[in-house]
């Protein structure tokens, strides 16, 4: 079917392309950055948690707030702010939770050292258990034990039954 000179498929294609361009428009208005700033943007945005979705960084998230924070981040980078400035800005508003890598301090000591402490404790427990097992290995049988065992095994021929006891 031809409509106005171009095929339906071509029109659909053009429509989709136009729609995609529309989507991209929000990036066009975003602050332009040089290559180095762009790399820092990706790095920083990837380390900031989106507070609406909580399990995505603001780089990955398309939540409204994440987009606003990305715009803010770009503006701060363009204004020459340092990484510390930017992280401080975010933490002042949203708390340490906004950082995927929370700073080491009173409240986060367990978070940072907990896994290491657990690993060491587990390994130590494992080694201790192994040692104890070795120490408590059953005493070799003496002749009296063997005689009792033979008696219990009863009718079996001596060499067969005793084999496993040696």
């Amino acid at each position: 079917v031809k409509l106005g000179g171009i095929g339906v498929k071509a029109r659909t294609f053009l429509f989709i392309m136009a729609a995609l361009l529309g989507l991209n428009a929000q990036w066009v208005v975003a602050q332009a950055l040089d290559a180095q700033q762009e790399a820092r943007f990706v790095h920083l945005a990837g380390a900031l948690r989106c507070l609406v979705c909580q399990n995505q960084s603001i780089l990955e998230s398309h939540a409204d707030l994440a987009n606003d924070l990305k715009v803010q981040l770009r503006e701060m980078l363009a204004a020459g702010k340092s990484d510390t400035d930017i992280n401080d800005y975010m933490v002042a508003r949203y708390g340490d939770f906004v950082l995927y890598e929370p700073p080491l301090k009173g409240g986060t000591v367990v978070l940072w050292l907990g896994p290491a402490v657990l690993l060491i404790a587990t390994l130590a427990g494992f080694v201790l258990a192994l040692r104890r097992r070795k120490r408590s290995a059953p005493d070799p049988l003496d002749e009296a034990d063997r005689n009792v065992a033979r008696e219990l095994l009863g009718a079996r021929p001596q060499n067969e039954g005793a084999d496993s006891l040696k």
Partner: protein
Amino acid sequence: MKLKALVPLAAFLCLVVFLAIGLTRDPRELPSPLIDKAAPQFRLPVLGEADRFLSLADMRGQVWLLNVWASWCVACREEHPVLVRFAQQNVVPLIGLNYKDQADQAQTWLREGGNPYVMSVMDANGRVGIDFGVYGVPETFLIDQDGKIRHKHVGPLTDKAMREDLLPRIAKLKVAS
């Protein structure tokens, strides 16, 4: 020996208790770093009144509530009647922060559901919202006479939360003045 056998059980019960406590907590409720700090400065246009602005300094000297709302916010619809009832009690001024909204839609909302706010200010691009650390509308901030944020409620306020949480806090702040 017998006691030793109970160690794994005890450890398991410990884990269960911690996980059970974890289940009762709302992961969306994050501690705000702004509590007991000076509220961020702002100067925003008042909704429905051309050329009129409100800034933080204008509210100095009184305890007040800042409620972040928007006409596109579904949970705000649930909260709105609670705010209307609160406003009727005339306890403290309630200021609205109309967050990333269209003025005409916001005004329609207030016409339809009643206007509990002394006034609402328009944060069209959400910058003031970011300064206040807003991440889930509706949010409500309790601000004291010195312009310090004393409490933050995330999510829709209920009559119960008003009665048992916010009103006692307000009363305490008013006594302190």
